[in-house]
């Protein structure tokens, strides 16, 4: 508890008339006691005391800042869900979060004190409200919202100006439709593919089963782009609007049609979940394991999987692995270690490494290209094809064959000159293309968006500029 030098003695020195309450006060921790005591005394009494004090007012106010406002603010900020989520989504460690809360509380307590001083100066009867916990609570809420807004804005501005990794292409130059091109996106292990093949068979069977309700499954098929029925195309997710149109879902307003679609989607997801729970329980474990031994850093291999230095060296040297048991076959770990690694979340999923966009570090650590050559590859790209490495004498035939075996690929760059990137467009561009100013402002404040479904959900069913957005923009990927 942050109470500084404040303690009960100071309180009673400044307010001897509160001594009466002291007799009932039996707390052991005197610092905490000062805070609790002031809370017990209440806002009105504290305010009137501050008003009454003349020469000692400054001292009393300092006491209030450290023993009243600051502890209250620290507690309120510490459990503020918006702040927690904002920091959590940015992977700020709990210890660091606590530190931020304390400094945030110290800063805010000064502002609260300034407000109180102003109220004392004006001498108004309701000035005590500045001391009410409800007032402090509201101030915390507003301060957190301002903080989130400012931080988000700063993040956007700085990310537009600097690249996080100068050796890496800005991922936002890819588009969401092209999302499968980003490394580590939807990388599937052999075990996952087995489960997905089985899932497809199961869903096909459900759609053919006369006893099963079809409509919810068709909505799932369309929304996720599973390609199980003629209504959907594989890999092409639909928004709710598009799904309503495709399936001709009726309703008086778009909001009602979307609500109907949502109900069907929820039901469909429930059906899928029940099917999996009954017939494919292994799928659950399969989607929990997430540390790919082909791409994990040394630190991750050591800390998350508990691999020894020797195991890590051998693992990086022998990459890539298509199955976990290859770790044994290639002498990376002993066979007794494998179940332990799997339990800690290790998975072996082969990852294609695009030499036109990967970082020099990935080219070295995953593909096994020597450091100097990796840097040269980065400086000489883009390549039109992998053979260009031979033509430019960047690699021998044998080395290239090894690099290919270890996952090196060369991809063509995606471009979409007809549409504008919604995640990077300027306000004036949005407005010029017909997006209403309010929507444009809100989009700029809250982007990036990863899917059109996300944009649709965020803007709501009756968003006025939806058609323009969908037709004239694409979604560039965020670096986050």
């Amino acid at each position, binding site marked *: 508890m942050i109470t500084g030098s404040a303690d009960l003695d100071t309180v009673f020195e400044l307010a001897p008339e509160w001594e009466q309450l002291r007799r009932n006060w039996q707390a052991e921790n005197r610092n905490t006691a000062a805070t609790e005591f002031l809370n017990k005394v209440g806002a009105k009494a504290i305010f009137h005391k501050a008003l009454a004090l003349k020469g000692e007012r400054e001292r009393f106010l300092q006491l209030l800042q450290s023993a009243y406002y600051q502890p209250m603010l620290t507690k309120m900020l510490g459990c503020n869900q918006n702040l927690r989520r904002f920091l959590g989504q940015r992977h700020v460690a709990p210890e660091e979060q606590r530190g931020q809360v304390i400094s945030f509380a110290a800063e805010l307590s000064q502002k609260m004190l300034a407000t109180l001083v102003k109220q004392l100066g004006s001498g108004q009867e309701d000035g005590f409200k500045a001391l009410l916990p409800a007032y402090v609570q509201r101030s915390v809420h507003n301060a957190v919202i301002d903080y*989130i807004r400012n931080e988000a804005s700063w993040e956007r501005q700085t990310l537009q100006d600097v690249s996080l990794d100068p050796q890496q292409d800005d991922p936002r130059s890819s588009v969401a439709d092209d999302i*499968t091109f980003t490394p580590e996106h939807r990388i599937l292990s*052999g075990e996952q593919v087995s489960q997905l093949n089985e899932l497809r068979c199961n869903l096909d069977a459900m759609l053919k089963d006369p006893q099963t309700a079809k409509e919810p499954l068709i909505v799932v098929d369309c929304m996720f782009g*599973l390609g199980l029925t003629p209504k959907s195309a594989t*890999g092409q997710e639909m928004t709710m609007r598009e799904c309503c149109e495709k399936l001709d879902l009726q309703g008086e307003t778009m909001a009602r049609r979307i609500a109907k679609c949502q109900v069907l989607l929820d039901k469909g997801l429930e059906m899928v979940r029940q099917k999996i729970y009954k017939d494919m329980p292994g799928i*659950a474990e399969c989607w929990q394991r997430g540390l790919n031994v082909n791409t994990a850093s040394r630190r991750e291999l050591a800390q998350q999987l508990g691999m020894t230095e020797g195991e890590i060296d051998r693992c990086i040297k022998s990459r890539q692995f298509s199955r976990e048991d290859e770790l044994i076959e290639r002498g990376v770990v002993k066979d007794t270690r494998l179940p332990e690694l799997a339990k800690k979340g290790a998975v072996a999923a*082969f990852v294609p490494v695009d030499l036109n966009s990967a970082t020099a570090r990935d080219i070295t650590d995953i593909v096994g290209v020597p450091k100097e050559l990796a840097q040269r590859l980065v400086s000489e790209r883009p390549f039109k094809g992998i053979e260009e490495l031979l033509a430019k004498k960047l690699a021998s035939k044998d080395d290239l064959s090894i690099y290919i075996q270890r996952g090196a690929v060369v991809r063509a760059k995606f471009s979409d000159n007809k549409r504008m990137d919604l995640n990077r467009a300027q306000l004036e561009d949005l407005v010029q293309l017909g997006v209403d100013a309010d929507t444009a402002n809100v989009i700029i*404040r809250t982007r990036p968006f990863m899917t059109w479904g996300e944009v649709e959900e965020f803007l709501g069913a009756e968003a006025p500029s939806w058609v323009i957005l969908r037709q004239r923009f694409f979604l560039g990927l965020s670096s986050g």
Partner: protein
Amino acid sequence: MINEVEISPEVVRLAQNRTRNMGSTLADELARNIVQEAIFNTDVASELLIDEDMAYSNEDALVAAFGVNDLVINGSRVDVRIVDEEGRVSISRALLNGSYMTAGTLAVQMNGTLNGKVISYIPASEWASIDSQAGDQQTVYLRPRLDAEFDLTDTISNLKVSEAVKAQPAPAPFDVATLVANRTEVPMRKQRQIVEGTLSHPETWSQVEKVVATWSKGTMRRLLDDASAWNQRVEKLVDKLSPKFKRIGRDDVKQVVARIGEKLGGQPESGAFRKALLSTLAHEELAHSLGGQALRKASDVAEAVLSGRAVTDAIKDFAKNPVAVEIAMKIKQQRNHVNDFMDATSQELSSAFQQMALQPVYQTHSQDTQAGVESVNEALKMLDAGELAESLKELDKELSNI
């Protein structure tokens, strides 16, 4: 709207990210934010205080598993629900008649995603009454009286809090998993025991977290997203491959892709995947025309060519008679490189012999495969296989960009 409050777009996005991860409903999350905002907008002298640490809705796992959506205001746990497009409020019955639902529900009407107002209050007793007539339904619906002048301060100050219920023991993890993944098969009485037991035993929440990570709608969404990506990869591959492998049916090509994915993972652009895929399909294609030793040799040639060996070099590696290979090449030239896996006719042989001025040993149709016509035919088939593999190299490049 009177009493309408606005929430910050940034907060809506935070809520959206949370619900997308968990697979819970954004509308309820926004409704709770609206109530919070409305409380912050009341006169501070009414002293409405939210204790954020006490709400079950702070726990992602409890939200995803049971659909809790509460706020603790001045010590009372109040449920919050959205008024849907039909003017109804709905709640899972597992949350009723227990310690969760003691102070009723605040109903929120949204206007878009950024604005909304608290518009009604439903006492816990009203839910209990509807619940008693719900039969075997999982969810109950209620059409509240919507009051544009709804007085939030007055309602909170006069909440009707029902009596606490008997505590339940902590549930077994298996029961929680069944409730989350297969709710309809758990009787309502049991559902309530599980919910009650979980809520009153915070030490079990980490277990719920694991269950939710495995079985939540968020996990199902991730799974289906991956299914969509994999199905698309398979379809794209089949579209590219089918025209090249005319003797193999589309479904069989799909089977081969699926099998290789199971073995090598779901990234067809990786070199190992492409090589395995094209070698397997080349073998399948050859198997429609060849058998036995000829098939084995032709497949070996195809694989060597796909690995980067020149066609003629690959054939010479596997054919023991280089002269037969030369003859076969002459015949192939006459055929304009059509890969039909046919034996050489006597006319084709004669023409080749003339061109090469060879001795009649080849005209005897000897049964000696080392020296006779059969050697030529074998080389001819290997040549066909090699050329097929060569033509797949371009396809291999395309697959690396699929």
